[in-house]
């Protein structure tokens, strides 16, 4: 199959959908890989590196003209979709529930679209799971970013000039990103507290040496295919109360709470922020889905009376080199599952194909 990799056009997107090592594997699996010149530069991969592994370098148009299937990272823009040839397949982040119009547009150009983010969270799909691989890096980066922004250091330090107490970090959501954030903050010496609505996360959080804030009267939460269902507003209220004490003492807050579909739950109100410590920082990783904090604006910095609220959406992308490598390997595993050298085998009885194929035969499938 002829695969195409374009330079990403989304703002702040530094990743690339294929890295040289993966190109080599794709080529040896019988595919041809067309890459837009300079596509990997931001992630540290030069055209020469790709060429050395057997990729065909070319202009954007050349790639579009040749490729039967586009490997992509960020959700494609309307312009990008417009520029594609009819019938091109697309493998990319899509977030289908958030972008119904985009799906229609893609269906209208007859594209077959695979949403990498819609993968079922099953054991065998783990090697293709871009959410895990990217959120993991994002969780690390969120803490590093927070540490850089914070006017305090994380670890306890007893020095000749006095004792610096450890920073207090509060993390909302112990999914992939949250767990890695816990680990990273702990490594740097912070005191970490965590809240999540899935009861099984308590053990996981404690296995990373952090403290779990228990919300009373929480029943098992509905998890489907690895995606957590929203909980009722009464639960959210109780949770906010249980967490508030920690929130008001926190130096750094990292929120990662997501639920299936729709908008992220609001876990930090504007009122709470106004009562937080001066100099505290909130990194809202749910910004793209509306944010866990009322004040969050995606990709923006808000100074709420001394409390800094950040809503970065490019955290994984900021670890572009590793992120591209892992994303590319996820895609490689995905391709080996859904396609042969001759093309994609649309086996709709297959759980993975069926769950990810959001546009097929001019039809939106969700």
């Amino acid at each position, binding site marked *: 199959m002829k695969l195409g990799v374009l330079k990403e056009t989304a703002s702040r997107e530094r990743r690339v959908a294929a890295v040289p090592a993966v190109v080599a594997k794709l080529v040896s699996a019988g595919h041809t890989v067309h890459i837009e010149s300079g596509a990997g530069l931001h992630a540290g991969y030069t055209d020469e590196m790709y060429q050395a592994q057997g990729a065909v370098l070319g202009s954007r148009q050349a790639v579009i003209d040749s490729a039967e299937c586009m490997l992509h990272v960020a959700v494609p823009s309307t312009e990008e979709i417009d520029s594609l040839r009819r019938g091109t397949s697309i493998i990319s982040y899509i977030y289908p529930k958030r972008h119904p119009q985009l799906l229609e547009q893609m269906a209208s150009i007859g594209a077959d679209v695979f949403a990498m983010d819609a993968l079922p969270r099953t*054991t065998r799909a783990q090697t293709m799971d871009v959410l*895990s691989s990217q959120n993991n890096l994002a969780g690390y980066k969120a803490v590093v970013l927070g540490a850089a922004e914070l006017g305090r250091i994380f670890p306890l330090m007893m020095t000749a000039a006095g004792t610096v107490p450890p920073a207090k970090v509060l993390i909302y959501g112990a999914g*992939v990103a949250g*767990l890695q954030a816990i680990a990273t903050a702990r*490594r740097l010496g912070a005191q970490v507290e965590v809240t999540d609505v899935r009861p099984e996360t308590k053990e996981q959080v404690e*296995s990373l040496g952090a403290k779990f804030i228990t919300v009373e009267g929480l029943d098992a939460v509905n998890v489907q295919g690895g995606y957590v269902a929203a909980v009722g507003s009464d639960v959210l209220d109780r949770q906010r109360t249980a967490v508030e004490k920690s929130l008001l003492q926190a130096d750094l807050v990292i929120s990662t709470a997501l639920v299936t579909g729709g908008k992220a739950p609001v876990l930090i109100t504007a009122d709470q922020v106004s009562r937080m410590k001066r100099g505290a920082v909130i990194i809202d990783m749910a910004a793209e889905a509306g944010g866990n904090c009322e004040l969050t604006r995606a990709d923006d910095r808000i100074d709420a009376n001394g409390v800094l609220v950040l809503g970065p959406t490019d955290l994984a992308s900021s670890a572009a080199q590793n992120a591209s490598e892992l994303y590319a390997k996820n895609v490689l595993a995905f391709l080996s599952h859904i396609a042969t050298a001759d093309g994609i085998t649309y086996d709709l009885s297959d759980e993975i194909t069926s769950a990810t194929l959001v546009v097929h035969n001019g039809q939106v499938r969700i």
Partner: protein
Amino acid sequence: MDGILPLLYLLASVTFVLGIKLLGSPKSARLGNLIAAAGMSVAIIGTMFLYKHNGKPLHNLEWIIAALIVGGVAGWIMAMRVKMTSMPQMVSFFNGMGGGCAALISILEYTSATQSAMPVSIGHALAMMAGLIIGGVSLSGSIIAYLKLEDRLSDIRFGGQQFVNNGLLVLTVMVGVLLVTGSLSGLPMLYLLAALAVLFGVLFVLPIGGADMPVVISLLNSFTGVAAACGGFLYDNMVMLIGGILVGSAGTILTVVMCNSMNRSLLNVLIGNFGSSAGGGGSSTGGSYREVTAADAAVMMAYANRVVIVPGYGLAVAQAQHVCHQLEHELETKGVSVLYAIHPVAGRMPGHMNVLLAEADVAYDKLIEMEEINADFPTTDVVLVVGANDVVNPAAKTDPTSPIYGMPILDAELARQVVIMKRSMKAGYAGIDNELFYRPNAAMLFGDAKASLSSLVNEVKSL
């Protein structure tokens, strides 16, 4: 009893004590065995040439030597030929021979006593009968144990078996007592006693299950020790006394220790087991698994060339990373090469094991990726699975209906020995049973991983 022989006996006695002591540690066990063997040779040769009976040296020396050669060559050949896995039954067989020897001595002594018509002191009579009974039980019991372990005989149980056994025991002892007091006498009665003892030995061992055989053998072993001591008493022979009592006492304690390490009482093994099922621990899924103590696992690992540690989520839950690192260190001090096999999804987040092990300062180059280390398992002596489950579950390769089918796993099962540390037989994240735990080369070490690892560290250190 004067001259140099008593001193040789003293020497031999000392070698026996020393031998048992040295046998208690892997480092010195071989030496202990050799020392005891040397002492035994001294005692035997000394007896042959220096023993005086009523002032005269022993006669029949050529026959004695012939017997020694016959027995020695046969014993040697049998011992060298036997397969490693059949060792316990071999021990049992040899033990039976010793018991037989003791019983024969009693018979011979009784014969000569009746012939010489010299009055026999109660003490001597007691020693004689005790030697005969205990030796006889040991002889037949050991042979039955041997046959059962060789699978030539299966457990035989019948209603009222315990009643019959107890009755037989009482009868045997009674006949023995009557022979001692002189109320009964004569060779036929003696042979009756011998027959009763042999019969009891048979019936005693018959119902006991195969897994408990080692305990029974150890018990019979200490019996033979006591029988030998009776012989020593008969001949006022210190080395026989010491050797016999030593084995009698050490053997009894060893038996108790063995029961303890199976979490059973001796009584439970011998009697309570009537009619219970054979085999080690059972599982709800029907397979049976083996348990191993920290001490055993420690020896396995300390004497291995290569140990691979497979960490999993349980390591994180137990927060056992530091102790794990310490175990690695202790093993390396002993010259064992230790590596960690890191499964890409071990734990609950990507890189979970890396975070843990880095915290404990495990060198990065000891952490080996799955693809790379899988090739090495077949040549690995021991795999230590610490709180991992799904990532070593062979079902991923063999069972298409399993939810983890298709996930690449660590081929721990291919190693010579696999020790699995977890708290129970419960499933891991995927919620499925793990066939590996029931493999013949696998053994479970139950308990919190941190506690288990720290006992392992202690045991390894003590080796």
